[in-house]
C-alpha cells in the first residue's frame, strides 16, 4: 500500500496532504519516512486527511509523533478535512482534545 505526503500549499504554514486511503499498521513506516523530512521545512503545519478513509491506532500514533516533534520546536500542527471514519476514531480515544481539528485547510490557516 503506497503512501505519500504532498505539499499542497506553502506560506506561513505548510499544508500537507496524506495521499493514501488508509494510514495503518501496514503503511505507517512509509508515512513516517515521507513526513519526517518535511517537518524540518517549517514550524507550522496543517495536515489534510481528506483521502484517509481508515486509520488505526498505529496510524494515530504516527500523528501523535508528528505533533510531539512540531511542538518540541515551538511550532503548531493542525488537522483538517477528517473523514467521518477518522473523526470517529479521534473522538473515541479523545484525541480531538489533543489535536486542533478544522473542517478545511482555509479555516485552519485563518485560525
Amino acid at each position, binding site marked *: *500500500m503506497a503512501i505519500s505526503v504532498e505539499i499542497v500549499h506553502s506560506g506561513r504554514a505548510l499544508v500537507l496532504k496524506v495521499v493514501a486511503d*488508509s494510514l*495503518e*499498521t*501496514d503503511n505507517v513506516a512509509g508515512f513516517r519516512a515521507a513526513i519526517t523530512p518535511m517537518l524540518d521545512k517549517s514550524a507550522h503545519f496543517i495536515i489534510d486527511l481528506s483521502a484517509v478513509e*481508515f486509520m*488505526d*491506532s*498505529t496510524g*494515530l*500514533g*504516527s500523528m*501523535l*509523533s508528528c*505533533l*510531539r516533534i512540531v511542538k518540541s520546536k515551538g511550532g503548531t500542527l493542525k488537522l483538517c478535512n477528517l473523514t*467521518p*471514519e477518522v473523526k*470517529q*476514531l479521534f473522538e*473515541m*480515544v*479523545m*484525541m480531538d482534545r*489533543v*489535536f486542533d481539528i478544522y473542517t478545511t485547510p482555509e479555516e485552519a490557516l485563518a485560525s
Partner: protein
Amino acid sequence: MKILVADDDELSAELLLASLRSMSHEVVFVNNGEEAWKLIQEESFRLVILDWVMPEMDGMEVCRNIRAMQGSSYTYIMLLTGRTDRKDRLEALEGGADDFLTKPLDNGELIARLNVANRILEMEEAERRTSRELQQARQKEIELGASIQKRLLYTPPPASANAIETASLSIPSQYVDGDFCDFFAHGTQIVDVFVGDVMGKGVPAAMVGAGVKTSLQRCMISLLTATLKPTLPKPEQLLQSLDALVCAELIELGTFLTLCYARFNSADDTLTYVNCGHPQIILWDSLSGVCRLLDTTNVPLGFSEEESYEQRTGNLHPGDLVLFYSDGVTDLKLPSGKRLGMAGFSEWVESRAHLPLDEFLYEVEHLRINGLTGLAAGDDFTCVAVRYRGAETERNGSLQLWADHGSLRKVRNYVKTSARKAGIGFTDPEVNELLLAVQEAASNAVRHARVGHKGIPIRVSAKVEKNVFVFELRYPGPPFDPGLVPEPVLDGTKEGGFGISIIKKCVDEVAYAFQGDHNLVTLKKRAKGNGK
C-alpha cells in the same frame, strides 16, 4: 626477427652481429649473462643466442632461467659454444637449449640454423593462434549455452501465480549447466512447478535439460488433448508419460536427471508431488513453524525403463513455504567443515521461513557465499521458494490467509462485506467500529504471534447469532493476555497503547482464549442504530 646476443668475446660477437644485421634482423647485444637475463625479463625476444661460457652468469644459467619463466610466447635459445662433447650437449638440451652454434662461426651454418629457428617459431606461433581461436570459440559456445539456459531452461514461475508467490535463485557453475525449472498455471486455482537437474555440466547437460523440458510440455499437451473432455493429468501420469518418451534415449545417451514435479491446488489446499531423485522438498508448516523433508518417490529419469511413478499428496496452509533446491545447496560446507546436507538445510530454513521471499533468498545467497570453500564453488546452485497463499477467499464461512504486509486490508474487506450481508441493521459508524476492532485485533496478532516474524497464518470467520455479529480470529503463537496491557494514556503524551481499549469501546463483548495451540479472539457486536 628481434634477437638478443650475449657474448663476452667481443671479437667473435662482432662477426655474429654483422651477419645477423646483414640478414635484416633487429639485434640487441650485451656482453654478459646477467645483463642478458635482465633484458629478457623486461623485453620480449623471439630468439636468444647465448655464449655458453661467460663470467658471473653463464649461458646455461640464463637458459634455465628463461625456461623457468612463464612467458606468453616461446623463446628459441641457441647456445654459442666451442664444446663438441656429447655429454655437454645433452646437458644443454636438458637445460632447455634448442640448438647450438659452434665457434668459430660458420656463416652457412648460421643461416641454416636460423632458418630452422624461424620455422619452429612460425609453427609455434601458428599453434598458439589456433589455440587462441579455439579458446574463443569455446568461450562463445559457453556464452551461447548460458543464454540457452537463461532463455529456454530457466523459467521460474512469476512472483505471483494463482495461489502462490515465488522467488528463485540460480547460480550456474560454469556459465551453463543442466538445472532447469518451469511452471504450468491451470485456471485460477492450480499451479504446477517443476525443477530438474541433468547429470553433468556444460552445453550437453543444458541441451538434455532443454529436451526434457520440451518433452514434458509435449506430454502435458498430449494428455490434455487425449480425450474429448480435457481433464488435468495427475503429476504421476505426466511423469509416466515423460518416462515413456525420454527414458530410453537418456539411457542411450548415458545420462540421467533428477526431477521434482509439484502441484499446488488452492481448491482443496493440497500439494501433490512426484520426486524422482531430486533433493527432498522442504515444507515449512506455517502453523507449527516446523520444517519437514518430503519423501522421494522415484528414482531419477534415465535409471530404469520399468519405473512406476507414484505421487504423494499433503495438506497446505496459507503461509506454508515449499522449497526446491539443487544439490549445490546441500553440498555447501559448514564452518566446521561438515557438509550442510538436506537435514542441515532444513534446520537452517526453519528459523528463516517466515521472512518475505526476497529476504529469504538474500539469506540463502549469503549462506552460499559463507559456505563456499575450495571446489564446492564449482557446483550449480538453484533454489526455488514458493509461498503458498491459498485462495484467500471465504470458504465454509471463514477466511484463511497469510497475514503479512498488506493483508490486514483483506481482513477488513471480509468483515465489511460480512457486516453488510448480515442484515442486522448496522449503521456506517457501527461498521466502522467493527472494522477498527477487527483491525486492532488482527494487527496485534501479526505483531505478537511470533516475535520477529513478519507473517503468520490467521483464520477469521464472521457469523450472525441471534442478531449478534460474531467475529472470530485464530492465530498461532504464545497465549495473549490482555490483562498485562496497561490502560491507554489519552492526553497525547503516549503514541501507543490504544489498541485493546479501542477494541473494548468498539464492540459489546470481547473474549481472549487459548485453544489447543492457537489464540482465539472473539468479538461480538449488536446493531443499535437505525441502519437498514
